[in-house]
Structures are given as C-alpha cells and as structure tokens.
C-alpha cells in the first residue's frame, strides 16, 4: 500500500525539479501520442523542441511571443496567489486590442510619436474595464469569478466579430473580417533590427520586475499571499479581501489588455480575428508552470513561446496539426500539477493498509 504523507516542510528541491519533471513527462507522453498518430517522433521532436533555438530568425520569433505570454501571466499570477481565478485573460486581451485599435481606425491619417504609446494606454484601460464586471460580481454579488471571467471572454470574441464584420471592416479589404492596416506611427518601434521583436518586450520584463518587487518585497504583496493561503487569518489581520479581489482582477485585466494592444500595434499591425492564438489560456499554464513566482514565470513564458514556434515548425515539417500544441500545453499543466504534489507530500510504502 502506497500513500501520501505530508512533509514537515515543503521540499525546495522538488519545487525546482517539478517543472522539469513535468516537461519531461509531457514530452514523452506526447511523443508517444504522435507515434500512435503515425508521425515520425524524431522529426516532431526536432521541429517542436530544437528548431526554435537553432536559428536567429526563429529564436527572435520566440522572443516575440514571450512578450504577451509573460505580461499576461504575471498579471494572472498575482490573482492566483490570492486565490482569485481570473481565467478570462483571453477576453481582456481582445478588449485591449480593440481599445488600442480605436485610435488608428478612427484616425487613420494621424501622425506623431504619441500614437503607439496612446494605444498601449488605451489597451490597458480596455482590458481592466473588461475585468470590472467579474470584480464587481465577485465582491458585491458573491458570484464566482471563474464563470464570469470565462463568459466575458466568450462575449469579447463576439464583440470582436461584430466590429470586424460591421463598423470597423476595412472598406478596401475585399470583405475580409479585418480592419485597415495601421499607419507607421501606430507601430511600436522595433527593438532588434532585422526581426519583428519590438520594444513591448521591455514592458513585459518590466512587468516581471515590478511583480517580483511587489510580491516578494512589499507588504501589499504579503497581504495578497496571506489572503490566498489563510483567508481567515487575513481577515483577522484586517487585510481587506475585497481590495485583493479588485486589485487582482484589475491588474490581470490591465496586463492582458496591454498585451493585446502590443499585439495589434506590433507584429499584426491591424485588428483581425486571429489576434490571439489562445494567449489568454496559455498564460494560465505559464503562470502555474512558473510556480506563480515572478521569476519562474519568465522561464515558463519563454518555454511556452518556444512551444508555439515549435508547433508552427512541426506543422510545416512534420505535418502535425496545430491543435497538437494545445494538447501539449494541456498535458504539460496536468503533469506539472501531478509533480508539485511531491513538493508538499512524499510517498510512503507501508506493509499493512492503514486502518
């Protein structure tokens, strides 16, 4: 009989090893899956996990995708630590993209260096506004934020479709559901010449730094942590739970909205249906995989970005459907959640079944 026994203290070694073990388990189980699908495992492994790092051009694309994932996940992790489960970052990202696009859509002739920064500000506001509903519902109406944030995401997708098929459709766009291409001044300046990596990645790293300072070094972050781990203790200590909920959701929405704005003002350059390839959901995995720790999330965002690029490669070279990346992401989180059990517990084998 094997059973779990709580450790006297959390194992630091396991905490570091868990994501790596999870990655290994996910790689093995997915390669097995691809073999049963009749794909060549070596080709998939090469395309998915090695190729993203082998050339400067694909590595720069990994950096490009790291930006939004890092930004969104840092915002979400703050809430997750306080047990506020905002799973609607996808919708907040879309609203950020919509709010940011309003400037170039309504002022397509405008010029000046103020445009892209204004778009980023608009995007962050849009994302935060979309999170107001779940925050109000949770604090005032006692409604579960998981369901409300998710519903808000589904509504955001419909809103995006409405704008792209209706008022914001490019009149010269051959009826495609997309906005006009944005003017030059609506684009965030390129950071690394010859690539698509723009200055918004600096914002993502800045967000990581701020999150680290806030969560690890400030009293406010400590209040969050206590609120999540021991809500009763937090209440006795006078830490406001409503404040934690409002802050968690607004920060999460703000960061996701900023990421959405940076996407339309960056690599995409217009508002279109495919502005988000599931970043909002992938960022949930990124946040957990990084142990909800600001520095861990930097690593996990980079890994997830590489998986996206590797998935694109594998689609071309190993004929792997794009959905395989989502399966990989899902199984990675499953494996991680299994692995972190052993941070707090250890397996003990007993000869007799416990009474």
């Amino acid at each position: 009989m094997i059973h779990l026994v709580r450790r006297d203290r959390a194992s630091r070694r396991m905490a570091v090893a868990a994501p790596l073990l999870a990655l290994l388990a996910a790689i093995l189980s997915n390669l097995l899956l691809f073999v049963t699908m009749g794909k060549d495992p070596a080709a998939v492994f090469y395309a998915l996990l090695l190729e993203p790092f082998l050339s400067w051009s694909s590595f720069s694309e990994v950096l490009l995708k790291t930006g939004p994932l890092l930004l969104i996940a840092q915002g979400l992790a703050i809430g997750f630590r306080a047990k506020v489960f905002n799973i609607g970052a996808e919708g907040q990202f879309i609203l950020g993209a919509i709010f940011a696009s309003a400037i170039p859509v309504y002022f397509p002739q405008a010029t000046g260096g103020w445009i892209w920064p204004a778009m980023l500000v608009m995007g962050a506001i849009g994302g935060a506004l979309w999170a107001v509903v779940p925050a109000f519902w949770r604090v005032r109406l006692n409604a579960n934020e998981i369901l409300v944030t998710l519903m808000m995401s589904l509504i955001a997708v419909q809103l995006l479709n409405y704008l792209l098929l209706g008022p914001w459709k490019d009149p010269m766009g051959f009826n495609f559901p997309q906005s006009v291409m944005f003017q030059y001044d609506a684009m965030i300046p390129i950071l690394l010449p010859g690539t698509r990596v723009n200055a918004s990645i600096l914002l993502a790293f800045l967000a990581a730094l701020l999150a680290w300072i806030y969560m690890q070094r400030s009293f406010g972050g400590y209040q969050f942590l206590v609120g999540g781990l021991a809500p009763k203790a937090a209440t006795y200590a006078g830490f406001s739970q409503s404040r934690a909920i409002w802050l968690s959701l607004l920060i999460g929405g703000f960061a996701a909205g900023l990421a959405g704005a940076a996407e339309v003002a960056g690599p995409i350059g217009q508002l279109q249906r495919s502005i988000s390839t599931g970043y909002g959901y992938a960022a949930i995995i990124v946040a957990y995989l990084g142990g909800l720790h600001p520095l861990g999330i930097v690593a996990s965002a980079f890994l997830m970005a590489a998986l996206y690029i590797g998935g694109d490669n594998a689609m071309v070279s190993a004929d792997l459907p794009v959905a395989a990346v989502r399966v990989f992401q899902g199984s990675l989180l499953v494996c991680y959640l299994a692995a972190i059990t052993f941070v707090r517990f250890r397996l003990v084998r007993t000869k007799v079944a416990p009474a």
Partner: protein
Amino acid sequence: MSGIEFILAGMLAAATPFLLAALGELVVERAGVLNLGLEGMMALGAAIGFIVVYEGGGHVAAFVAAGFAGVGLALIFAGLALGLRANQVAVGLAVGILGQGLSSLVGNSYESLTITGLPKLAFPGLSDLPVVGGMFVQDIVVWLSLVATAAIWAMFRYSRLGLVLRAIGENPTAARAIGYRVIALRLWAVVFGGAMAGFAGAYAATVYTPLWADGMIAGRGWIALALVVFGTWLTGRIFFGALLFGALSLASLVAQTEGWAVPSQLLSSLPYIVTIVVLGIITSNKKLLKLNGVASLGETFGP
C-alpha cells in the same frame, strides 16, 4: 410554424447538451468535488461521437465511445484531484484545456463534414395538440434525458446512495468517521460526471447539430457549470434552467430569421450575458446558497 411553436418544439433538444452535462456535474458537486473540466470533456465527447458516426459505427457506439472519452478525462482529473490531492480548480482547468486540445486534434481531418442525426419519435396523442404538440416529438436521447433527470431527482430524494453522496459533500471527515469510503465514492461520482459530459458532447455533435466544427461546444460546458449554481444544486431547478437556455439559444435563431435589426453577434452572446446576470442574482442571495450549497465543495480531502 410561428416563432413560439418553433421554440417550444426545439427547446428540449437544445436543452439536452446543457442538461446532461449539468446533471453529471450535479452529482460530482454534491459529492463535494468541483470539476471545471466539463467544457473539455464535452468537446472530446463531441469529437469522438462524431467520428464514430461518420465512420459508420452508428449512434449507440458513438455515445458509448464518447462516454468512455469523458470517463478517460475524468480519471485523469480524479487521479490528480482526489489521488494526489491537487487543487481542484487548477486540475479542472488543466483537464479542460487538454480535452479541448484533444478534441481539435482528433477532429482535425473531419472539419465541416456532416452526418445524419436521429429520427424523432412522437408521443402518441399529445403530439397532435395545437401549439405545444411539437414538444412531444423528440429524438430518443431527449426522452432518455428526461428519464435520467427523474432518476437523479429520485436518487437524491429517496435513496440511500443520494444521502451518502450528500454526506460526503457536506462533511467528508464525519462521513469517513462513520465508515464511508469518501475518496472511492467521490471517484465514482467524478466518473459518472465524465460519462455524462461525454454523452452531452456526443448529443451536440451527432444529433442536435450533426456536423463537426472545431470549438462547436462554444461554452456550453461552462454554462452547464453555471446551471448547477442557478439550480442551487437541486435537480428540478437545474432542469428548468437547462430548458431556459435551450429556449434562449433558439430565440436568437428566431430573431435572425424574422429579420430583427439586432446584430447576430449580440444574439450569439445572449446566453453568456444571461448567465452572468442570472449568476449575479442567484449568488447575491447568500441565504439561498447557504441552505442548498455543498459545504466542502472544491476542498481537497485526504486521510
């Protein structure tokens, strides 16, 4: 056929995916477990069910296979959330993402293909009634779902099993102290919930709209989760909630065909908007939740 007749005739079928998934989740939550992976379980059930019918296996095999697909994901959920005592919210999300990914993956080469659904069976006599007659012409799965609703209602109302399930959801420590095997019972509840979610998905993809499109579950699993809260964990109320959402999804179709000057995207978001509004109304009544809620819902439990 007038709009009202259309809605009356179709709402049971439209409600069935919500109903089946929500009934399964009701049993799971009554036992004290929160399974947020419902959407993914439905999506995988839908894909597997569609493929079985498309490849000529027939509807019975399709539902069985979809049920097993749901159970497969439910076992992963149970292994982590019950066996390894991981956070139920996180595990539910993970299994949901995995299920949706697997659904897209296996359904990849079937995109936009269609199949034939199931024939409608008329309830003799009642089906000839004016206006409401259409309600009594339904496919076999709808009729069986009604039976399942009654059976689950009776189980919670009258049977020992229903009482035991509620006990392990209310106070697992006390239930174990008097000799019930909490984890084993919760495991069975989760397996049942997975099978029902698989059936719900199969119904959506092989009977209600017999075609395959990636993402066709479109939030119905999440609405089913909300329905359990709307129904304050009571079978009868969940049934009427499911009917309401069935009618709502048809109302948007009626509005479109009647040419109302409302953007179709607004009509498509109507179920989501209604979910948010109703959720707020129900949950703001704390007394109602306290009276009917499940005390240990979502909490990990271990020896």
